[in-house]
């Protein structure tokens, strides 16, 4: 099986290129996938961090009142009254362990990642927030609480702590879709490269292929030669690619640990995650081999 092929494909110029491109493809696909896993893992971490927490948001005074300037004080007073009413209702609730209003300073800290450091300009309407801790194990009918709150304090909005998570979740989903698209594009590029390489090989060796046909070779026999050749070249590339990607991930993990980034280092992938990353080179090689085989068979169909 590993003896010399009947077709002298090993001597073809494009071989090293196929390995090299394959290495790049596997490298990129593994990194894109790892990126998606890291984001997903972070999201799960953040989700766990906000479990058992609720937030009640009191809308800032209406825009019209805020613009009037002299009405700002009135709006503030109204908001303060709403906060008080909401606190009273929440603290009386069975499932609530603690309800704490956040000061303007706290809110500025929360908004810092998005709006930058420093105190916010006074005329930016900032909502009042109440952080609610649930009793551990307590079950809460969020809809009922939301309704009760709405009845007492019309401008209050109950958010089960995904208030800040939601845009983040959306961002992460977009990022994950992007990396899925990248992986798909890479797969497509791999297929196209193998198709071109195989067609070139078929053209270069058409005389030997005719000879094999005349000696009674079926298309499958010739396809197997191309498949075997593609397997050797792409396997070399895939091993190089996953090796480089593993090195980069390890390196990034070390850096993340050193600077204490809130990104889980690569070593925290689940077993499924590791299996998926390891499957990338296998899948890439299979895809290449299958493509080569199909290309040969489709091309030869038109020969006598």
């Amino acid at each position, binding site marked *: 099986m590993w003896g*010399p092929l009947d077709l*002298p494909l090993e001597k073809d110029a494009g071989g090293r290129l196929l390995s090299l491109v394959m290495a790049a493809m596997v490298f990129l696909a593994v990194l894109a996938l790892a990126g998606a896993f890291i984001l997903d893992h972070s999201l799960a971490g953040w989700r766990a961090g906000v479990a058992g927490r609720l937030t009640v948001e009191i809308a800032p005074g209406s825009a019209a009142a805020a613009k009037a300037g002299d009405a700002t004080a009135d709006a503030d007073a109204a908001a303060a009254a709403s906060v008080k009413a909401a606190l009273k209702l929440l603290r009386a609730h069975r499932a609530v362990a603690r309800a704490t209003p956040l000061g303007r300073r706290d809110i500025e800290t929360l908004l810092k990642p998005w709006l930058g450091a420093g105190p916010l300009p006074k005329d930016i309407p900032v909502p009042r927030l109440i952080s609610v801790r649930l009793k551990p194990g307590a079950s809460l009918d969020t809809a009922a609480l939301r309704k009760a709150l709405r009845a007492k304090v019309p401008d209050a909005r109950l958010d089960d702590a995904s208030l800040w998570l939601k845009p983040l979740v959306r961002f992460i989903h977009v990022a994950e879709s992007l990396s899925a698209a990248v992986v798909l594009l890479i797969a497509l590029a791999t297929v196209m490269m193998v198709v071109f390489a195989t067609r070139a090989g078929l053209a270069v060796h058409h*005389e030997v292929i005719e000879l094999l*046909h005349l*000696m*009674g070779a079926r298309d499958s*026999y010739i396809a197997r030669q191309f498949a075997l050749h593609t397997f050797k070249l792409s396997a070399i590339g895939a091993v190089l690619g996953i090796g480089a990607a593993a090195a980069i991930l390890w390196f990034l993990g070390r850096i993340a640990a050193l600077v204490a980034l809130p990104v889980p280092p690569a070593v925290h992938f689940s077993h499924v995650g590791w299996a998926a990353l390891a499957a990338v080179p296998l899948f890439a090689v299979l895809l290449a081999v299958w493509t080569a085989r199909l290309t040969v068979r489709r091309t030869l169909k038109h020969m*006598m």
Partner: protein
Amino acid sequence: MIRFENVGLRYGLGPEVLRDVSFHLEPGSFHFLTGASGAGKTSLLRLLYLAHRPSRGLITMFERNLAEVERRELPALRRRIGVVFQDFRLLDHLSAMDNVALPLRIAGAKKDEIRSHVAELLAWVGLEDKVNARPPTLSGGEKQGVAIARAVITRPKLLLADEPTGNVDPERALRLMRLFLELNKIGTTVVVATHDRRLIESAGKPVWRLQAGELKIERR
């Protein structure tokens, strides 16, 4: 075994290089195919070894009407035919042994079976000491030996040779002729295209003459 009826062949849109060729090839027969260069000998052999389909006419081969044979059925028919090509068409990157083994590998024979068989045939053509040599290191006559061994390794029913003595010394040509006659004796149908008059005279077998694409059958 093989019957041609009014067979014509043209390459693409060119003129007919074979016209109204009709003959019957009996099993176990031996024929020479002769004619000037460009008369159509190679073209006729190409039809016989199923490299081309005729532009017109009827070819019956191994009890099959070729017009009704599908592409996927060709390999089975081709495996009954051994060919010694004019330019040998050996694979330069394979040893003499692997070149001769090729038709057996294609037919899916077992490794040890191939090994003993190939060694035996290389000895038959006098190349037992060239088993591992590659074609570029062989002389013209030695290459021809490898080509013949490869053509007969599957014990074909039909053996076709295209100008096999083209660039071989007379002694070697006669030796080669003896191999063909030997194979013919054990039942192989043989067609040898050649314009080597001495070769034809040495064998005393029927001669078909091609003249500008038309076949003339003469007996001697």
